[in-house]
């Protein structure tokens, strides 16, 4: 079977024009800016984020809603890192088995991280996406920041 190559400049230009037209539909909504909520180290090295409301979100989001989200996240991280009888027991048993149980079972921290992921997904669907915002799970940023992406208003309709 022989293949045919068509040497025609007009077809390429035509194709380019249509592909450029098609491309915006395949791209994500346009990102206007990103806001980073930094960690709050006043209580030590535990995972806690600042609840100060950033000025960039004033036009999009209610302050109370934002504080509630961050406070819930802080509470969840505190639950993950809580020192108590249960965590000590888990740690002690792990020590006896030379920490090999960490290879087999899910730790308490990992279970809470999944809970946090579900909470963030839920918040994005109910609160942030309708306002053209997107919360990124802090674990994807090394637990350094809570990243809030602000999308341009006009591209909300074509978002996923």
């Amino acid at each position, binding site marked *: *079977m*022989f*293949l*045919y*190559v*068509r*040497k*025609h*400049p*007009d*077809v*390429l230009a*035509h*194709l*380019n024009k*249509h*592909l*450029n037209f*098609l*491309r915006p*539909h*395949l791209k994500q909504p346009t990102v206007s800016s*990103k806001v*980073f909520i930094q*960690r709050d*180290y*006043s*209580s*030590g*090295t535990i995972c806690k984020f600042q609840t100060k409301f950033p000025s960039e979100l004033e036009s999009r989001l209610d302050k109370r809603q934002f504080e509630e989200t961050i406070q819930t996240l802080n509470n969840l991280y505190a639950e*993950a*890192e*809580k*020192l108590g009888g249960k*965590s*000590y027991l*888990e*740690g*002690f048993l*792990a*020590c006896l088995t*030379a*920490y*090999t149980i*960490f290879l087999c079972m899910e*730790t*308490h*921290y*990992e279970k809470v*991280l999944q809970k946090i992921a579900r909470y963030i997904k839920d918040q994005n669907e109910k609160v942030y996406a309708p306002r053209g915002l997107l919360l990124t799970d802090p*674990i*994807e*940023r*090394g*637990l*350094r*920041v809570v*990243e809030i992406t602000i999308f341009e208003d006009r591209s909300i309709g074509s978002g996923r």
Partner: protein
Amino acid sequence: MKTCEYQQIDPLALSTPTLPPYDGREKREKPRRPRRKWEVFPGKNRFYCDGRIIVARQSGVLPLTLGLILATSGLFFIFDCPFLVKHLTSCIPVIGGALFVFVVITLLQTSFSDPGILPRATPDEAADIEKQIDNTGNSSYRPPPRTKEVVINQQVVKLKYCFTCKMFRPPRTSHCSLCDNCVERFDHHCPWVGNCVGKRNYRFFYTFIVSLSILTAFIFGCVTTHLALSTCFCPCSDRNCRHSSDINIQNLLVICFFSVWSILGLSGFHTYLVASNLTTNEDIKGSWSGKSGEEVTNPYSHKNILINCCTMLCGPMPPSLIDRRGFLPMDESVQTAGTDIELPTVAPKSEINAVGGSPQLAFVLRNLPFLCLYSPKPT
């Protein structure tokens, strides 16, 4: 349309470099293998077993450590255990075996796990931090050291900016120059285990050195007992009688003697660090010793030895932040430079067709595979 020129191409000739557009098409047709994050990790670490195992670039003297442990334990099991089982109790090899397994497992866990590496800041994060600190438009040749002060439990702590990772280091985090990573609760880079010791693997390291000191003390004790008992049980009346295994036992004794003191000393030092919730780094620098005369206390200590120990050794296990086995997002791995026509052929054609358009467009889209072979005539 203009008159078209058609050129027949023999598929067998496709392997020759005379037809670059077709070669490009061949490459694009192969689906890109999704890459894992460890393959693009910026630090100087090496990964094995598809990202499950992480080690520093230089393994240091880890093979020596393993070799010494294996050799000492091997000699013990071969030369001492048979005698001691016969004259004392058969529990000795059982205890020795259990300790040996414990030591090796904790050593491998210390060497092969993520010590608490902080992933580097994304470009957006780095730009945001730059914006916040560089408001003065500093034009001096050398930028001043960037620090930020936070108050932790009524103690002022300075956070330094890491120029490599482009972020302010959290408290107790330090950048390891050997691994080129910021490590949380950085203790030290241990060449004996060939990895950094940090937040995530400190408990493995501590358990390793404590169990190793118990093992060496145990072997030392058994060897001494063996020597003492073999002198008593020796049927030879000659006092200068030398058995062939005596040399081996004596060598073992020498190794054990030096190991016991150095490892016991190290275990004792780290027990002190655990009890006061300090890291080796902080202890060496004297961060909380108040050397300048001011009242400084360790803001991270729980002020209770038992709670400090429990926190360090039995506290919740923090997760790995680098997600080395996660997959890279497809838009990062599929990005290709080049001509406009290079839309990935794996893109859902149904999506494109669903957009609709003119019959001309439909013709173009139906013939996309063939039109991709098009190469503009050089003018």
